[in-house]
């Protein structure tokens, strides 16, 4: 397990974020700092990691747990290296989202919500990503992949595997 401490660069980022809010409102920085923690020390917000964030913001651990568990972007359970998040809502469902999810399930050999045995991919269908005009769409990390075809999905997964050195 990596040491649960932000790098100096990330600590500088925490300082920058804290300056956005009144000095007595450090808790306001919780969501941005959780995003930072998940990116830098995640992808899983473990209890020790959330406790570390609580210490940085001078709030109690429960204040971090209740927030991390409320928002769907935060992984309070272990996830694979790459989280694949195809949109499943209304307009996307009209334009192939169900087929896309089924294709991903078959290709990865897992069900929606599960992680591949090699720990590389987690498939988690998500609600509306605000990309309804370019359906079907999938978010991977911060990137939107729009107007997806199965061939494009194959290419994406291949690239991710290469990035992971597999």
């Amino acid at each position, binding site marked *: 397990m990596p040491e649960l401490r932000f790098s100096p660069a990330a600590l500088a980022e925490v300082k920058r974020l804290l300056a956005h809010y009144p000095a007595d409102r450090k808790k306001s920085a919780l969501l941005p700092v959780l995003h930072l923690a998940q990116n830098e020390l995640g992808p899983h917000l473990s209890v020790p990691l959330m406790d570390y964030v609580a210490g940085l913001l001078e709030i109690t651990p429960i204040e971090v747990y209740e927030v991390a568990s409320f928002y769907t972007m935060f992984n309070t359970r272990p996830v694979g290296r790459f989280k694949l998040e195809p949109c499943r809502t209304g307009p996307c469902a009209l334009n192939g989202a*169900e087929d896309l999810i089924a294709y991903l399930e078959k290709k990865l050999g897992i069900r929606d919500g599960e992680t591949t045995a090699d720990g590389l991919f987690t498939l988690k269908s998500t609600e509306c990503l605000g990309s309804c005009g370019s*359906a079907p769409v999938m978010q991977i990390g911060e990137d939107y992949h729009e107007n997806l075809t199965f061939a494009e999905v194959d290419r994406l997964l291949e690239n991710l595997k290469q990035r992971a050195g597999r």
Partner: protein
Amino acid sequence: MILEHAGNAEARTLAGWRKLGGYASVEKALKGMTPEQVGEEVKKAGLRGRGGAGFPAGLKWSFLDRKSDKPRYLVCNADESEPGTFKDRYLMEHLPHLLVEGMIVSSFALGAKTSYIYIRGEYMYLLRLLEKAIGEAYAAGYLGNDILGSGYSLDLHVHPGGGAYICGEETALLESLEGKRGNPRIKPPFPASQGLYGCPTVVNNVETIATVPHVLRMGGEAYAAIGVGKSTGTKLISASGHIKRPGVYEIELGKVSCEEFLLSDAFCGGPKNGRPIKAVIPGGSSVPVLPLALFLKTAKGEARMMSYESLADGGFVSGTSLGSGGFFAMDESACMVRNLWNLTRFYHHESCGQCSPCREGTGWMEKVLHRLEAGQGRLSDIDLLVDIAKKIEGNTICPLGDAAAWPVASHIRHFRHEFEYHVKYPEKVKDPRHGEREPVAMPK
């Protein structure tokens, strides 16, 4: 108007935006107007909140408690998450400086010294883009201390959400900005008196704020002359679903008929698969669905127009709402039971869980719809759904309950035959693609 420079890459940098006439409203307001005068122009413009509720922005601003000695805040709601809506994303991606400019003049009008843009966490790339634009604005002296020597100072920050539809509700958004769960607050007190950190606060949608520079440029009265009646100005419509030309369109309110919007090549371009359009949800998934005939013409037989009033004509019995402008159309291959099940699953997933009618009701409706869709429902389930929806509506702290109830009521009101079909012919709906296979089998 709003999207005038949307395709132009120059508009994304401060220098380019200034060349296109950007930041003129900041010069105009901060050097030559009082905050009250700016507010007055917005009032005169008749600008209505573009997030979905359509509440007059000038009036909302006038409710701000100016007697309080606490700091005041302006918070931009960029938590765009209403299914079918992607206009704010488009606007921020193409015209980040228009939003920054709008934030500056609006903050000036409200007397805010610190303002925030609360953006949904999924739009993290846009957060970085906005922070870059804000950095440029600081460097050019449009933000920070003593802006353009006017004596007015403003700090502007972007704050990410964490993936929760409910944070689009303004009090949930404020809770989230304070680093808490997005549980809506009981109103009153309204944010205008006790908002962010208990201070007077105004929360406005991205498009609303992006319109303010245009109002100042042309003057409130000139802006009000655009559009029809109380639907002044232009509105961004994000179009998707079974149409040929999905995308974001800016329309002059009340001047484009629903028929033209759906069929014309200037807009949606008609159905994409050659199958006739069956139903339309014109304002985001929360507004009532309409069958094509009622979308094109009101119950009185008049041509329906793309405006707040015309879309609402007939109330929720035969009308709908412009909402957020999240327009999506369904052709005859769409199964309305499946569509409603999908949308209800969304509301169940997004319910914050505070109020029992919403927390329990949305889950209950999702389960009933799932069994109907799978061909395991009973005829009595249909009225059960109507009953649950009725008991959620109006009985929750925030409008998410209503937003979950309206699609249920309207899908059943206008497409009851499809629900009955699922009960009568369970073997025909076993295949999840029955919408595509059996479109004509659904009796009218």
